[in-house]
Each structure stands twice: as C-alpha cells, then as structure tokens.
C-alpha cells in the first residue's frame, strides 16, 4: 500500500531534496523501512541502533502522534499520510 511520507526541512538533504516520498508498507514501521530503502541516509537520522525512533523524532499518522496509536505497529491504509517532525519545538 502506497503511503505519502512528509519530510521536515532538516531531513530533505538526506532525501535528495524531496519534501515528501512515497513508500509501501502495511504498518508505520514498514513504511519507514521502505523509506530507508529508498534513502539510506535517513535511517540513522530517524532511528537508533535498536530500530526504535530516536527520542526527539515525532511521527504522525494523519495528524495523530503514533504514540497515541500503536506506535510503529500502527496499521496504515493506501493513500494515508505519515509526517515526520522534530519534537523539540514549543513551550
């Protein structure tokens, strides 16, 4: 299933300048793996060595923080939008 992944400005250089990418998968985690397969440099930026998200990376599915859903195991549907953003704003 094709999902659109929106990339923050800080990650675009590692994705050839693109603001978004299309990636396949049935969960958020699979979509991210597919994204890393396209742009290898993104893996280290987004995930730690254990494959979990780094602590200052937020991932949203259709605007909802995936930590309120099922984390990386959250299922995605065709045409969904996944957004990656830095967590250090605000306050």
């Amino acid at each position, binding site marked *: 299933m094709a999902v659109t992944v929106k990339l923050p400005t800080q990650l675009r250089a590692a994705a050839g300048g693109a603001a978004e990418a299309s990636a396949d998968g049935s969960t958020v985690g699979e979509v991210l793996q597919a994204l890393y397969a396209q742009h290898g440099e993104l893996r280290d930026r987004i995930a730690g060595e254990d494959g979990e998200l780094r602590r200052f990376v937020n991932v949203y599915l259709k605007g909802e*923080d995936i930590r309120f859903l099922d984390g990386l195991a959250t299922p995605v549907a065709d045409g969904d939008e996944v957004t990656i953003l830095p967590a250090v704003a605000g*306050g």
Partner: protein
Amino acid sequence: MPAEALKCKECSTAYPLEARYVCERCFGPLEVAYRPPSSDAPALKRRIQAGPHTLWRYADFLPLQGPARSALPTGWTPLVRADRLAERLGLRDVWIKNETANPTHSFKDRVVSVALARALELGFDTVACASTGNLAGAVAAHAAAAGLPAYVFIPADLEAEKILSAGAYGARIVGVRGTYDDVNRLCTEISGERDGWAFVNVNVRPYYAEGSKTLAFETAEQLGWELPDRVVAPVASGSLFTKVARGFQEWIDAGLLAGELPAMHGAQAAGCSPVAQAFAAGTDVCRPVKPDTIAKSLAIGNPADGPYAVDLARRTGGSVESVTDDEIRAGIRLLAETTGIFTETAGGVTTAVLAKLAESGAIDPDERVVAYITGDGLKTLDAVRDGVELAQIDARFEAFEAIEAVEEVVA
C-alpha cells in the same frame, strides 16, 4: 561570555549561531554554547550592577551579538518575601518571584525579548509563535513595539482574556481546532515553509529559551548574590524549569555564586502531567498525554524538554509533582490571600505544589524556597469565579447593616 555556537544537547554537534533548533544528525535540541567569561567575578558583578533595570543587565550571559535593547522593557520583577504564606505552610523563608509584573503580565516577555532581539540580528521580518496563551500576548506586544507583523497560533478554545489581550496589539491570531500539541505540530511545519518568519519557540527556540535564565540571575541578585535552597517552578515544555537551573549553574561556574544548584521541584497539573508521571515512574521517557486541565498555559501533552526536566529534578534532589484542578483553584486563593499576588492557573499549580511539598515534609522549615509565579490571574478569571461572592444591596445604610449582621452570624 560571548556565544560561540549552537550545540546539540544529545550528541554535541556544533552549528553556527543561525536560526536552527534541531540537530540534523540526531534531531536533538540545540542550545547556545558560550566561551568562558573574559572578566573575573568582581568585574562581571560591577558590570551587571551598572546595567539597566531590565533583563538586559544580564547581556553578558545572553546570546546577542550586538547591543541588547528592546522597545518594551522587561524583567527586574519583584522578589517578594512571603512571610504570611510561609506561616500558613509551616515554613520560615519563602520568596515569590512575581512575574505578573512584566509588560504583558507573564514571564514570556523575557523569552520573547531575547528571541525578537536575535531574530532582528538574523534579519527576520515577521514574528510568530505557537502559544498556550501567555506567549501570544508577549509576541503580539513586543512585535507591535518593534513595528513588526506578528502571527500567533493558539488552540481555538483558549481563555477569552488571552485571545483578546493578544488581539489588542494588532497581531494576526489563528485559532487552531485542536490541542496545543496540534498547534505546535502545525507551526513546526509552517516554520519550515516560510522564510523570513521567526517562530520564537520553533526556529529561534535556542535563543528564546535563554531568556528564562534571567529568572535565575535576578533571583540570585535580589537575594544578595545567594542561591536559594529549593525552587518550585511550573513545567509545561520544561524549558523554563531547565533554564532556571542553567542560569544558576552559569553563575556558579563564573564565580558569581557559591554553592550548589538548588533542589529543583517542577509543578504540573494532574490533567496534563507527562513529566510528573515519568518522574514517578523512574524513567525519563515522557509519554505524551491529551491535556484536560484548567491550567491551559501548562497544557503541553508532548513536552520538548521533558526528559531534561526529569533528569534535573532527580539529580538536584528535587521532584516533579502534580496537583488537581481543585488544588490549583485553592493555590490561587492561598497565594492571593497571603501575598496580595493574584496569579493565573499556572501559578495556582506552583503554589499548590509548594503547599504539597511543605505538607509532606519535603521542605525543611529553615530552607530558603523560591516559587516562580509566572502569570497573572486576570488572564484566567474563570478559575476564581465560583469562589467570589458579590453582595448586592440598595444604597442605604440599613441595607449594609443587614448584610453585615448576616456575615457576623456566619463568622
């Protein structure tokens, strides 16, 4: 102590002093790093004491390249010895830092002063923010004073007092349907797409956050160049809380203060307490929450500096506590009735946590405690509405005597 770089708090990667807030390598937050002061402590102290009665007297410890000034003077707020409050709490040395005395009645004037000054140095022409309320007013006012357009993004259900007071300054106010965390996410996206816009708490956040250090500098100077034993301060994103400690630490390192960091106690509302929950659970992972509290100015469910706040509380022998909405209302009343300072819900949270700590015996009666009252009660009037009675009478002396008699019976 000139600023020399932005440094990642996670991996220490250094960046130039630009409008950046995120480490491109690991997404960690960037913080301003300084060279050690070139003057000795007596010279630094003399320079501070000769400075203006605003936060710019601490310019040696702020990240500006040129002369520090702003059109809306901020800071140098009263530090009030609160003996009647102390007595009620069984303590002897309690001080209130009264941040309602700032131009827009909250500590946010400090962070905005620094962010705006730096934004102008960096060539920005528009200011913006994601706000839980107090920041909206501060950004709108400081932008107006500087003659810059301002965009203020807030949760659409914010208190009317905060919306109207920000709007009076002529800022463009955008109410976003959702929580503050939704507003923040949107602003993080927008800030990447709008050149020329300085989002004070997004792309210029490292400079903005430095403004909160002046809360520590002023407190220490007003205490006669001494450190308090304990601090109670509100925690929303955790930025103020961690920067107050950093301010004290910088002055210890510079030889301006002798001693150790105070025990740092963070205050949260039970209806939005991701940091207090992490502290209680013994972890530094702050699981995000959906806020449900009257303390809207602290209603950040996904706190950016949460892990650092937990760590700070733990290593200084402090804590992060939470209090219910009823305790918050009682805290507002307690502070108002014993000090004459009317605070908003966030100050109710801080006062209620101070009371809770005193009651639990966590504070030795002889310890010197400073509580940071960060905002004004006039901005959250609904919180006290139920506790205030209005006796309506005709304009006749007998009518007054009649209610006086009733009150005597009740008393």
